[in-house]
């Protein structure tokens, strides 16, 4: 049997916390052969990235490898001097990060950053050769205008393109191993499918081995030969991809697989003459004069129902929320609340109109004041909108905490920093409920959360809706969320409504072409999904051409 390219034995990694060291990885083993792709899967905090970096012999500040070995091509990385390890990094082991926008240096062009490893650091190619190689890789990864795109700075290139440019950069020295750390998580589904296909082809072409880190099972199913499941630094199980998908052994793996099944009971259709809670009638809006970002958008939201506004980044779904809340006055059209036309601007709306409409945000981290306790965060809208003070106010805060399934005595005096991501999002929900609104805008409320946590949040929102008759407007790019919770779906692209209808209508053919593209881009758990989808698209394209 040939020796594996990478072999990790009994690896323990610790992270500094307050005064002591907390375990991040507890004795993980890993083997990877030449040309093989291993999928690492787990929720945030499982230690996937830490393990990926350890495969390069690299530790972030504040972490340390306390035990174990990392052997790459016969060399034990952890006992090598740092200078020798640097010679391997970038040249033989390369890294592709999740957020390419943050991992590209804003001060240099893409090509300069591409050629840095082969030319300036590892001296294996001349500048001209490296640039030619770069243009070839850009073309191979299907970047638009590969001859010219290297002259651009990172901020001049879109997220999906940057992600591909980063993959090209990792391949610059033809490495033996590439660590892909959630390379498509930040992308829209329609972009993700292109990047996935480009990465997979490129990996096959240069025959490199890869560790593919993600929390998305459907994605890893397309990319990996084997899958390893991690939970809080412990290995749960490892199996070849097809076996793992068909027959996960451990409870935890099964629970990961089951998450995508959540479906809420649809709410009944409203009566034809029922006045909607909120009516958006022919709204157009613009940030720059004569460059509308919303064109003639209309939809109704009825009491006790959920409407999902779906689209890619830049489709105008968040702008629609800004217009509804009055942050951005519409240039045309009107917003009605319970049949009454709302003033366009936030400042002209009455306190009661403001109270009726609340928001829950994507990043609970930044939406909660880190210096305020939970009591203050939830108590403030109670005092402002309902005029309650002192004991009455506290009573109400406790009621709300109970209704979001958090024990009041345990949490009321904590700061947001002491809570988990899911708990913070619950506080965000309680803050919105504190005003006793009729209508809540949920802006990507689950997209920063792990799947299991996200599902709990969706269940909670659903229960609150049933209890209180709330109307929700869900802004999301995630079709799984739409399928789980929406009664009515609005599909947006380039500031226009492409199609709208009930959930059943939207998920059964015939589709509007754009809806069809969106739906078919959502990765499925079938390892052959990517091949099939690409094949179908190619066929459809040739049909159109003929």
């Amino acid at each position, binding site marked *: 049997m040939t020796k594996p390219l990478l072999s990790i034995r009994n690896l323990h990694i610790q992270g500094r916390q307050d005064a002591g060291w907390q375990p991040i990885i507890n004795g993980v083993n890993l083997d990877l052969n030449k040309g093989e792709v291993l999928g690492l899967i787990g929720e945030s905090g499982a230690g996937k990235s830490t393990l990926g970096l350890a495969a390069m012999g690299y530790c972030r500040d504040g972490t340390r490898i306390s035990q174990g070995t990392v052997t790459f091509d016969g060399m034990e990385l952890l006992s090598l001097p740092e200078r020798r390890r640097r010679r391997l990094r970038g040249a033989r082991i390369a890294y592709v990060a999740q957020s390419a926008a*943050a991992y590209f240096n804003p*001060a240099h062009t893409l090509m300069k950053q591409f050629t840095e490893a082969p030319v300036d650091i590892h001296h294996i190619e001349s500048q001209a050769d490296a640039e030619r190689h770069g243009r070839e890789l850009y073309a191979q990864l299907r970047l638009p205008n590969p001859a010219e795109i290297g002259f651009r700075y990172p901020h001049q290139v879109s997220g999906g393109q940057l992600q591909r440019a980063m993959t090209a950069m990792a391949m610059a020295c033809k490495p033996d191993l590439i660590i892909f750390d959630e390379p498509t998580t930040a992308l829209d589904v329609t972009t993700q499918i292109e990047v996935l296909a480009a990465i997979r082809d490129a990996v096959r072409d240069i025959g490199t081995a890869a560790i593919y880190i993600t929390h998305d099972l459907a994605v890893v199913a397309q990319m990996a030969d084997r899958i390893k499941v991690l939970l809080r630094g412990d290995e749960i199980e490892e199996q070849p991809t097809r076996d793992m998908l068909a027959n996960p052994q451990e409870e935890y793996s099964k629970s990961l697989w089951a998450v995508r099944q959540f479906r809420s009971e649809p709410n009944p259709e409203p009566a034809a003459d029922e006045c909607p809670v909120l009516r958006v009638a022919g709204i157009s809006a613009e940030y720059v004069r004569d460059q509308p970002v919303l064109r003639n958008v209309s939809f109704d939201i009825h009491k006790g129902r959920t409407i999902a506004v779906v689209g890619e980044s830049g489709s105008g779904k968040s702008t629609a929320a800004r217009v509804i809340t009055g942050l951005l006055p519409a240039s045309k059209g009107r917003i009605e609340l319970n049949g009454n036309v709302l003033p366009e601007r936030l400042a002209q709306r009455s306190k009661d109109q403001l109270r009726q409409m609340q928001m829950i945000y994507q990043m609970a981290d930044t939406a909660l004041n880190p210096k305020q306790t939970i009591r203050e965060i939830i108590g403030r809208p109670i005092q402002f909108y309902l005029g309650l003070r002192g004991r009455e106010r506290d009573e109400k805060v406790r009621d709300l905490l109970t209704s979001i399934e958090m024990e009041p005595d345990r949490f009321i005096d904590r700061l947001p920093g002491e809570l988990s991501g899911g708990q913070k999002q619950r506080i965000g929900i309680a803050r919105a409920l504190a005003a006793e609104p009729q209508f809540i805008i949920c802006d990507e409320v689950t997209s920063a959360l792990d799947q299991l946590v996200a599902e709990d949040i969706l269940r909670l929102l659903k229960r609150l809706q049933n209890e209180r008759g709330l109307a929700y407007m869900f802004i999301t790019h995630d079709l799984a969320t739409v399928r789980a919770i929406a009664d009515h779906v609005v599909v947006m692209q380039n500031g226009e409504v492409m199609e709208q209808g009930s959930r059943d209508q939207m998920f059964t053919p015939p589709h509007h072409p754009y809806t069809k593209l969106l739906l078919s881009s959502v990765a499925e758990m079938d390892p052959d999904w990517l091949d099939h989808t690409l094949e179908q698209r190619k066929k459809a394209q040739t049909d159109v051409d003929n």
Partner: protein
Amino acid sequence: MHPLARMILHRLALGLLTLFVISLVIFMAIELLPGDLAEEVLGQSATPETVAAFRRELGLDLPAWQRYLSWLGGMVQGDFGMSLANNRPIVDLLASRLGNTLFLAAYAAVISVPLALCLGLLAALYRGSWFDRLVNVVTLTSISFPEYFVAYILLLFLSVRTGIFPSIADFGNDAGFGTMIYRTFLPAITLVLVVTAHMMRMTRAAIINLLAQPYIEMARLKGASPARVILRHALPNALAPIINVVALNLAYLITGVVIVEVVFVYPGLGQLMVDSVAKRDIPLVQACCLIFAAIYILLNLSADVFAIATNPRLMHRK
């Protein structure tokens, strides 16, 4: 038009507007000074008739806005008026003094700016080491003492005790370049000690601030050495704050050196201004203030322009 050129024009126009406002402030501040200029200059024994005649000669009998307009009008044409103390055109007095001040400032800047940048970069590279601490302690010590104290200590050891350098920096009218450098060495070094700490610490902090950025981690993962990480990846992104603090210190070197000039008897602009305040030579004081203001504005404007020119986000739009 190139966006940078348009931006420079825009900033220049704003700078002129600021200068105009400052001229108003200076004029009004001087108006508020107690006492009558003519009586002060002529002394207690002057008869009311001579005082009135002198006031007429200076235009002091005119209303304030007329005097302001004629002063401003003269300034715009390069006519700063006449000095009251010795009846010479202010332009002539300023020209040589300004040259001296700029020479000393440039001398100090040529030493201190590269020194501060290098020390800052090295301190960032070896942060936490004994070198980092030593540089911090030494520069902080030198900035913590008042300038005149540093100046007198240097004088005591390098001039009085050992006689290596002269204690009086005035090099006369037709000294060669070598003599100028030699005679002004002590004041220049005093200034270097005063301004280096500020620039060095800002360089160090700006670089270290960036070391937690993801693209720095990326550079390390590409195998870049620590020196390369700092010079190629952190420094280009840290230029804006560094440029700003350098500009502030250059402005200080020109406008804030009164004490050093007095200690070393150096005929610079600062000393001229102090003298003219003492002699109640109001037109000269006004002119000095305005020149200082113009230098401040110009340096800050260049800092803005450089900071923008080094930022690709602003230079290369989408």
